[in-house]
């Protein structure tokens, strides 16, 4: 029934320090196959770092990461990251390449597809995010919302098992946020396993299956969105929600 070959993802007791700064202090996060987990919390709580540790852009000091129930810490990190798509706050499209080349680059160089086939698949992904007509434009000539949709297409082109969103709408003008959130909601509905770090409480509440509240490098509270948003148990979460809602 799922459109995606997604898998479950688990972080177990993840620790990370930068020098004396203990950024992650034993994080546990489990995302069931085909579900969406949103991670909320104040700035500097370690949310974005958690994503980077879970795809091993940063290696954890301690703990384990399981993809589809199997530990991936011993795998080649580059191959692991081919299985986990990531979308960034600042889009990070490659400005020296056209939109379609942004999407097809990994298909050509990592999947080793011939150029025409990579382009065809990239166009298909662009069509999915409604930007096929911009295929030969440069990223700089797109609006922020369009750039972020291209970034999503770029990540999806690799047929990832899990998608990470790192404050994907925070850098967008307010009127462009909706389109990107709608696309993310479509992916969630389509059965993609997603971890969404976000300040969009509406999205967190309405789209995600579980919500994790982080503060100062620990998971303070997690559960289904109804419970987190209507009956927060800890004072820290109550305070945070009072500030942002």
């Amino acid at each position, binding site marked *: 029934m799922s459109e995606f070959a997604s898998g479950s993802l688990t972080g177990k007791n993840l620790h990370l320090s930068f020098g004396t700064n203990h950024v992650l202090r034993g994080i546990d996060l489990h995302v069931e196959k085909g579900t969406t987990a949103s991670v909320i919390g104040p700035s500097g709580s370690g949310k974005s770092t958690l994503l980077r540790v879970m795809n091993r852009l940063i290696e954890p000091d301690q703990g384990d990461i399981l993809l589809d129930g199997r530990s991936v810490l011993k795998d080649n990190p580059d191959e692991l990251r081919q299985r986990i798509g990531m979308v960034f706050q600042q889009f*990070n499209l490659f400005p020296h390449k056209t939109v379609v080349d942004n999407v097809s*680059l990994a298909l050509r160089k990592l999947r080793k597809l011939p150029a025409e086939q990579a382009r065809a698949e990239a166009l298909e992904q662009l069509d999915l995010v409604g930007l096929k007509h911009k295929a030969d434009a440069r990223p700089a000539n797109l609006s922020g919302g369009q750039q972020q949709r291209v970034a999503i297409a770029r990540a999806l082109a690799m047929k990832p098992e899990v998608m990470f969103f790192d404050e994907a709408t925070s850098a967008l003008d307010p009127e462009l946020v909706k389109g990107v959130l709608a696309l993310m909601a479509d992916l969630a509905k389509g059965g993609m396993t997603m971890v969404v770090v976000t300040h969009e409480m509406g999205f967190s509440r309405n789209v995600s299956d579980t919500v994790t509240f982080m503060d100062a490098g620990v998971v303070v509270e997690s559960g289904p969105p109804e419970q987190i948003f209507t009956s927060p148990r800890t004072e820290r979460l109550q305070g945070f929600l009072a500030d942002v809602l």
Partner: protein
Amino acid sequence: MDALDQLVKTFFDWEAMAAVLPNMIMFGLPNTLILAVSSGVLGCILGMVLAVMGTSRLTPLRWLSRIYTDIFRGVPAIVIILLIGLGLGPIVRVATGSTNPFPLAIFALTLMAAAYIGEIFRSGIQSVEKGQLEASRALGFSYGSSMRLVVIPQGVRRVLPALVNQFIALIKDSSLIYLLGLIASQREIFRIGNDAAANTGNLSPLVAAAFMYLILTVPLTHLVNYIDKRLRTGRPEKRQPDDAAALIGKGAQP
């Protein structure tokens, strides 16, 4: 009036200039270009190696690149050319039987150019936003592939103007090869002008040499300005107004 005549005769004796012109064009120009282009190309290759080492995460590589750059950027070109040319000259002669000073001159110019070009490339690479490397790594590219496909192409583009400047400097520094001793057909622009000036006691052949250098360098200077402008404003023919941005009347220009 006498003094003015004297000046004109010293610097702009057209006959003296015309006399060196055939040699300038037949030998001087090609020899200068051979020296500058080959050391420029080799300098770019070695410079890129230095830049990649200089931005590496491995401290010993960064140090090696640093030490090399400090030495070859800190010593005058004339010293390097003499040390390499005269120092290695006899060894090369024994080993290959060749007395042509060009390979050693190109080697010396390359070593020196690489130090400057390496610094140019390094600053370009380091000016690329960290998110570019991160996005590339997140797609599954290795560090090396990410640098090669994403970071370095952007970094190099940004420093093209500085790179052309360096090439202009190389054209001028190539004149120093005269120190290594050249036979007639090996002489480059400066040496031909200088020899003629010495023979005739008139400086006009040197002025002709200056003109030859200007013919090479002035178009390059303007190329720098053109590249610089295009890098800042983007490729005009490729621009298309952004639909969404146009609707809300903002941000169409990046």
